[in-house]
């Protein structure tokens, strides 16, 4: 291969195109391709390293392997149809994406959701934050050889995902929120299960602290590696744990409180050095704080209204009565056994988790099948070209995602679908700073630095 200028290929290793060695300024440089199919690249990015011996002189990060045209696709979907796509942004904390998206649309519409729904949104966000941090720390510990910590953390994450499954029937493809509320209320027995699992996660965190935090090998790999100072981090748009590890106290839950975060008592842990170890410690402490928030939510969450103890009825029987015009019981007194996918969205739950806005929120199923008004509302909201009509305008709204500021920018032209949706995922900014963080360290350090950033491909490439 011919190389112009001072760069000259002196040797080609084997028949591979992607390992190139040349001499420059008396030093031998090696171009090394890391990824996209590298076990520590989490599947989907490619880092092209320019090495001097084992030291990284420079690097180029190539992304886009998981680009699925999220923003383009959403321009063709109605407001509520976008929600399943948001699950796939940050797929280790999908509920935060759901919450962030619907809150942006609600900001555009100018509606607020009932307090119970707000508490539930905080609750699920914090559960997701823990699963996200568990994944991040577990995976990067595993990449350093600490398999036990990884397995312990996956076990804890499994408990939390079982909770998520209780709430919305899915572990990853949650789609739990709706514009104006939630898909369903919390299921029966959730409080006990949640408390129990919080205890379990606390125990796991304690164990992992014992395994990693004072572990000589772990500290040697993490301490003073991947250092980034606060000013550079801000210039790169760092947010979340990576910024707080540099000592910058920026957490949107405190800075611009949304939902009920201002009524909850929690601390924002800060690092000092901006290295891998601080990022690890910040994440560990944030999980503790998230558990605190969850426990407060469980205590403070407004109780739902006492259930109306009408005799339970099969859905088909109500449907038959409705068709004959004989459903004389007021809908809020009916107790219908709905299909288990609709558990928690019965009429006596509905108003506690959904805004009383019939132009935005679907009516409960019991009403749809028994009253003409609700049937019409339902029809209008579902039909193409009707749906939720938003005002003309543009809004930006951000929540504190697990990795940092997760913002949505929505431009509406007053139709039932967005004109433009832009996701400000925290990973994109973090990844653009990766080169700065790995420069000067060795190849082996690239893995823990990259791991401590917690890049999530779905959110990075959209």
């Amino acid at each position: 291969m011919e190389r112009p200028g001072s760069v000259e290929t002196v040797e080609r290793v084997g028949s591979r195109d992607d390992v190139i060695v040349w001499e420059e300024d008396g030093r031998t440089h090696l171009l090394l391709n890391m990824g996209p199919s590298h076990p520590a690249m989490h599947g989907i990015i490619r880092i092209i390293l320019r090495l001097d011996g084992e030291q990284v002189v420079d690097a180029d990060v190539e992304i886009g392997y998981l680009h699925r045209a999220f923003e383009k696709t959403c321009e063709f979907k109605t407001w509520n149809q976008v929600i399943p796509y948001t699950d796939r942004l940050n797929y280790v904390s999908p509920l935060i994406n759901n919450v962030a998206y619907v809150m942006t649309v609600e900001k555009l519409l100018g509606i607020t959701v009932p307090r119970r729904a707000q508490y539930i949104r905080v609750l699920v966000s914090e559960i997701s934050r823990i699963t996200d941090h568990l994944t991040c720390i577990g995976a990067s510990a595993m990449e350093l050889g600490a398999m036990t910590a990884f397995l312990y953390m996956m076990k804890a994450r499994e408990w939390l995902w079982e909770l998520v499954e209780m709430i919305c029937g899915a572990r990853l493809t949650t789609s739990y929120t709706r514009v104006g509320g939630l898909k369903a209320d919390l299921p029966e027995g959730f409080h006990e299960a949640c408390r129990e699992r919080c205890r379990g996660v606390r125990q796991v965190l304690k164990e992992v602290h014992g395994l990693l935090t004072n572990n000589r090998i772990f500290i040697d790999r993490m301490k003073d590696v991947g250092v980034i100072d606060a000013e550079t981090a801000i210039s790169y748009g760092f947010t979340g744990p990576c910024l707080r590890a540099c000592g910058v106290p920026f957490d949107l839950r405190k800075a611009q409180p949304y939902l009920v975060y201002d009524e909850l008592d929690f601390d924002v842990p800060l690092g000092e050095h901006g290295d891998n170890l601080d990022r690890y410690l910040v994440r560990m402490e944030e999980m503790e704080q998230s558990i605190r928030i969850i426990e407060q939510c469980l205590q403070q969450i407004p109780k739902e209204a006492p259930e109306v103890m009408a005799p339970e009825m099969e859905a088909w029987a109500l449907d038959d009565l409705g068709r004959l015009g004989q459903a004389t019981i007021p809908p809020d007194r009916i107790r219908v056994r709905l299909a288990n996918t609709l558990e928690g969205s019965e009429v006596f739950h509905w108003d506690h988790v959904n805004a009383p806005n019939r132009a935005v929120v679907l009516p409960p199923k019991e009403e749809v099948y028994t009253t003409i008004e609700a049937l019409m509302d339902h029809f209008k909201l579902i039909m193409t070209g009707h749906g939720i009509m938003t005002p003309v305008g543009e809004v930006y709204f951000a929540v504190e995602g697990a990795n940092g500021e997760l913002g949505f920018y929505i431009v509406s032209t007053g139709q039932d679908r967005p004109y433009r949706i832009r996701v400000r995922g925290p990973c994109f900014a973090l990844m653009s700073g990766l080169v700065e963080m790995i420069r000067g360290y060795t190849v082996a350090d690239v893995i823990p630095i990259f791991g401590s950033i917690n890049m999530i491909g779905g959110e990075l490439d959209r």
Partner: protein
Amino acid sequence: MSRPVLTILQERFRGAIIETHAFRGDETVVVRKEQVHAVLQFLRDDPRLRFNFLMDLTAVDWPERQPRFDVVYHLYSLPYNRRLRVKTQVDDGEAVDSVTDLWKVANWLEREVFDMFGIRFRNHPDLRRILMYDEFQGHPLRKDYPLRGEQPRVPYRIQPRDPWRDPDRWKPSSESDPETT
């Protein structure tokens, strides 16, 4: 608390500001594209404003409008805990001044806008596609690009891209002229 930002800006850049509005509490200022770099630099550095975060940089395509694109900057001020949206309008084929010298994150964000909309950024050090592959034709987030656009096939084993074949890529101060890219 919130009025001063727009007032200060209007005092300083009277001729540069096309329009200001605040919808749902989001303050927006629309700036002429020639002055957008100066305005952003002022917003970042002025001690009364200190918008030290460039949270997001994106674009919106309005095919029927002249000029066609909005380039949208979302700023956040950590010291004052405030947000501001700065927009500028640019037509197809025109270039905006890059803000990579103000915020390092702008490098990737501007690459993405270039990739998705074909808007060029003057003085950008490395303006190439970021999410799509080099052989991709067109700019997918333009409104005239179809949802399921067909692309020509590219050879399976493509020639290694810039950083592999082009040693200039690795020079620390490589300057590429957006007009000739």
